[in-house]
């Protein structure tokens, strides 16, 4: 039951400008980045390869359980390893990953390098838009089909008067 969207791939919808930090960076820097940017997370990279991720929720939980930790390195809080996606991945494949992994944010990696970030929201919205377009096209095709059938029916009745075949 796959809806085919040949045009839609991860690279079209991903966020290209991802906030990143090295693993030696302090948690305070991560907090500042998250406050400035709306991405909701910071990806921790080593030689441009994502090795971990810190989300706003991780930060809140850490602040609650361990108090003021703004001077600690991000590597103590980050979630590792991360599930990443490829920029050439199709949206319905991405949806399968989302349904099994249940994360909200996925770094996009090409040749072991971070090239973007994609969220569940972006993928679901893109698929919903594609589906809407798909549905409209399909409805038009169906209407044309019905008109055609009706036309064939009329022609058949007309022809039948003169050429009584099948009897």
């Amino acid at each position: 039951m796959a809806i085919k969207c040949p045009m839609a791939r991860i690279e079209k919808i991903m966020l290209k400008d991802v906030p990143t930090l090295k693993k030696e960076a302090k948690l305070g820097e991560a907090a500042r980045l998250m406050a400035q940017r709306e991405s909701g997370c910071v990806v921790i990279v080593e030689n441009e390869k994502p090795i971990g991720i810190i989300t706003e929720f991780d930060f809140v939980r850490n602040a609650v359980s361990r108090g003021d930790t703004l001077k600690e390195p991000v590597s103590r809080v980050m979630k590792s390893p991360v599930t990443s996606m490829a920029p050439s991945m199709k949206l319905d494949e991405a949806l399968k990953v989302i349904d099994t992994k249940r994360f909200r944010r996925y770094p996009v990696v090409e040749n072991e390098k971070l090239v973007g970030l994609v969220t569940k929201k972006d993928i679901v919205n893109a698929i919903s838009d594609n589906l809407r377009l798909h549905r409209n096209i399909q409805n038009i095709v169906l209407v044309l089909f019905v008109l055609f059938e009706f036309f064939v029916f009329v022609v058949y009745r007309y022809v039948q008067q003169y050429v009584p075949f099948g009897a």
Partner: protein
Amino acid sequence: MIKIRSIMTKDVVTIKPDSGIMEAAKLMASRSVSSLVVVDKEKPVAILSENDFIKGVISKKANVRDVMSRKFIVISPSARFSEISKAMREKKIKRFPVVENGKLMGLVTETDIVQATRDFTRFHQIVQEVILAVFGLATAFFLFYFSPIGASVFG
């Protein structure tokens, strides 16, 4: 038509404007929510998100009142899903307290909207396949009925 009532989170975690932000963070962590509704006399006055909390920690603010954001839209439980889906995309508003008769009934967050869109998409795919199947069968029957073979069968 999906109504807000069916997708909203009914168990809303609320906090008062003069509570401390660490108290708010504790609530968020223990209840696993990404935002709290700030209420004053049972009326939602603002939203406190994880992001607001982080901003508060950086700027060393102590009270919810100093970091909460007033950028939210109150909706009714009988509103349609498509209305807020549009507001979310165009105005970049992520959270919608649901209010009926002046009382806070629930909260619709981005996660709820994304999940509803996801389920809606799945439902639509199924409906679409069924319509196609019915049309396919009808067409096959139609062609058969009016073909010479069909005519000999149906008389």
